[in-house]
């Protein structure tokens, strides 16, 4: 049995090249904290620029109200600005949900058979290409100032886009799924709950986010032309009284509403499509 020659080992170790010592200092700011700081800067940059522009009087009140004036508008508006906000939110959310559901159902229906697809697709494509905003006067004549009219307007504004996108998702079945259904002699159009809906949910989020923006525009235009309460109505009446600070406040609230709904949509969707995030 060989014994270790410690002296020889120590001599050999002395001859080995000395490696540079690693930098033991931890990073001062972690990567996630950097991202949070950048996000905060992005959120605060706009208001900061606004405050600077008004503080140094670079832009006149005719074009850009002061931040204080916009905050004062909260107290000036009657009824309370939050009531207007609530009405607009309700019309938007109700119309968006109904429109998305209707669009998905229409898309599943036209995918049932090629005959139904050929029969309905030309009409759907035509209606989809009509700008929803252009149909506002038509709905005002039909429904007047009623809430139903505004909700149905949002539904028609987004349902056809969602329907076409849904149909496309169901047509573009991955090869491995087509082979799977054929191997077990199953018609994929009959697997609505087990297959069609999950596949639709996987692919439809970008269309829905875009449709949300469309829905906001449609709601505001409908309120501009035919409402007695809501942010769009408030913008219209403020224009008549040159209350630019109120208009600004409404626009800010619309931006907040759109952002909150977009975040809620994205987070809710990731829960719905739970298998993709794991």
């Amino acid at each position: 049995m060989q014994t270790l020659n410690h002296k020889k080992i120590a001599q050999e170790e002395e001859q080995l090249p000395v490696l540079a010592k690693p930098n033991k200092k931890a990073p001062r700011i972690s990567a996630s904290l950097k991202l949070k700081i950048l996000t905060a800067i992005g959120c605060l940059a706009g208001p900061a620029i606004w405050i600077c522009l008004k503080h140094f009087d670079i832009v006149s009140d005719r074009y850009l109200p002061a931040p204080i004036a916009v905050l004062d508008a909260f107290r000036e508006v009657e009824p309370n600005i939050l009531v207007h906000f609530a009405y607009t939110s309700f019309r938007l959310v109700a119309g968006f949900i109904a429109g998305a559901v209707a669009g998905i159902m229409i898309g599943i229906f036209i995918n049932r058979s090629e005959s139904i697809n050929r029969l309905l697709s030309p009409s759907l494509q035509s209606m989809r290409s009509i700008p929803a905003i252009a149909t506002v006067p038509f709905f005002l004549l039909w429904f007047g100032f009623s809430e139903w009219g505004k909700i149905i307007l949002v539904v028609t504004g987004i349902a056809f886009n969602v329907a076409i996108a849904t149909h496309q998702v169901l047509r573009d079945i991955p090869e491995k799924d087509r082979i799977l259904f054929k191997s077990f002699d199953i018609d994929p159009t009959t697997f609505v709950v087990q297959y069609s809906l999950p596949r639709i949910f996987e692919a439809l989020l970008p269309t829905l986010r875009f449709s949300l923006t469309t829905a906001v525009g449609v709601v505001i235009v409908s309120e501009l032309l035919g409402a007695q309460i809501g942010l769009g109505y408030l913008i219209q009446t403020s224009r008549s009284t040159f209350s630019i600070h109120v208009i600004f406040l409404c626009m800010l609230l619309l931006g907040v509403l759109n952002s909150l709904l977009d975040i809620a949509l994205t987070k809710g969707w990731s829960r719905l499509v739970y298998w993709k995030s794991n």
Partner: protein
Amino acid sequence: MAVSIQSCIILTSEGLQVVGLSYIRDGVQVFKDFSLQSAASLIVLRGASGCGKTTLLKLLSGHLQPQRVEYMPSAKGSCLVLQEDSLLPWMTGMENICKFAKISSCEVCQHPMYKLISRFVDKKAYQMSYGQRRMVELFRAIIHRPPYLYLDEPFNFLDEININAVAPFLVELSLTGTTVVLSNHHKEDIEIQRSADVFKFDGKFPVNSIDCLSRQV
């Protein structure tokens, strides 16, 4: 590992016969007047990646259409299991089996192969490992009992123990009326090799014929 035959009746399958198959893909003549004859009920296809094994399996199962063929087994009722995992991730393993193979969970639990998947079959497919998903897919194909079963690299993601556990069930399936054709790289499947006609692609295009390395014992 000995094969346990569940039935006293051994059903003969038709073997596999292909005559005059020609197929072009993306401008490349993959098969030209290709012929293959085997009386075996279990056939193994070997060859390097890209030599045409998967294409042949897709042609035989009817998922690709040849430009010309004189004779080929009917694709009706055949089942193809690809290399890619095709379990629906939002369904459990049991749901993936029952809904596609159109059987009840009781029938699944009574199958002798159930013990190989019982630990994880009630998980959602996205929660399973690739090896577990492969086991569930093979179970589903075996319990389905199609007249022709085409398997593309069925032992991918499986360790030697699981390969040796599954192989007897494939052999048994081939003895009870199903012609099983599989492409495979693994050399651990001794049971399969012994029971099958083994053919090898030489990797050259167009494929006109393939060499038979060994015949069913």
